[in-house]
């Protein structure tokens, strides 16, 4: 009886992930470099992120280049250090030419503590305060929205820490999610080749 009840409730949910192309036509945005409208491009996320240098950054600023996106937070132990290390491994293993074309957007869950100043200290300690790397913060609802778009699950705990899934996302030159690298273990060679292919 339990199972029937639960199924009945879930069956009521008529999800629709279908795209109404009539809606898409209303969008004025046309991505540069080609004339296709990228309806799922994250360039549509209007959030103004603030980076470790106090500069405002939007995802659409990176139009025309692949972008590596990772969500973490400064006080994190256990997994975030490995996640950032993995992001670094990925980035630093790209050819020098590709490194110049690829940026990194590291977004903190911790809207309270990871201020631009705290992010600067973090970036400096980790020796990642590099030209292509942006450690950013924004409001709580902005961070939630990005996590929902990327498929990153997280929950704030009562001790101020965050339980979260581990994910590195690669956006292509048009802002579409084109690669999801989950977890903190595993070979990155195929992912490297993929990113190199994005800059061709």
């Amino acid at each position, binding site marked *: 009886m339990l199972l029937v009840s639960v199924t009945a409730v879930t069956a009521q949910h008529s999800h629709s992930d279908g795209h109404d192309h009539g809606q898409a036509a209303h969008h004025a945005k046309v991505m540069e470099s080609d004339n296709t409208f990228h309806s799922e491009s994250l360039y549509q996320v209007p959030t103004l992120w603030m980076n470790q240098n106090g500069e405002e950054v939007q995802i659409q600023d990176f139009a025309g280049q692949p972008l590596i996106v990772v969500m973490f937070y400064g*006080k994190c*132990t*256990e*997994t975030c*250090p*490995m996640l950032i*290390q993995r992001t*670094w491994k990925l980035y630093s293993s790209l050819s020098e030419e590709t490194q110049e074309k690829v940026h990194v957007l590291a977004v903190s869950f911790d809207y309270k503590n990871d201020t631009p100043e705290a992010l600067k200290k973090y970036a400096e300690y*980790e*020796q*990642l305060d590099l030209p292509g790397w942006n450690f950013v913060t924004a409001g709580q609802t902005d961070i939630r929205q990005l996590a929902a778009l990327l498929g990153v699950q997280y929950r704030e705990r009562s001790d101020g820490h965050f339980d979260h899934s581990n994910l590195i996302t690669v956006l292509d030159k048009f802002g579409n999610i084109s690669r999801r690298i989950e977890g*903190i*273990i595993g070979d990155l060679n195929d992912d490297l080749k993929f990113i190199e292919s994005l800059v061709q």
Partner: protein
Amino acid sequence: MFLTSNEVNAQQIQPTETDTVTIRIVGSMADSRFVPAEIEIRKGDLLKFIVEEGVHTVTAYHPDNRRPIGIPEEAESFDSDILQKGEVWFYQPNVAGEYNYFCRPHERMGHKGKFIVR
């Protein structure tokens, strides 16, 4: 596992076999630690790290690992990457001096170690 310099001078120096020195990695989260956290070994000894609990790394303080250098300049940097429970990792130092290393997941909680190679 090691001889003090006085004991060495007192004895005739015999050719010795190299030893395998075990450092256990225990605990998880805040109580993670290397046991022993500090140790002296001889050049040529083989260090064997074994993870008894949790998930850890053995990572040199070195620019290759995005940290200020904490090992002798001519020594090779090292980073075990993720080690899980039951895994074993070896390192054989060839340069004398002090080596400072850390565990990446738990660095902020003070999970660090040191070995001195004579």
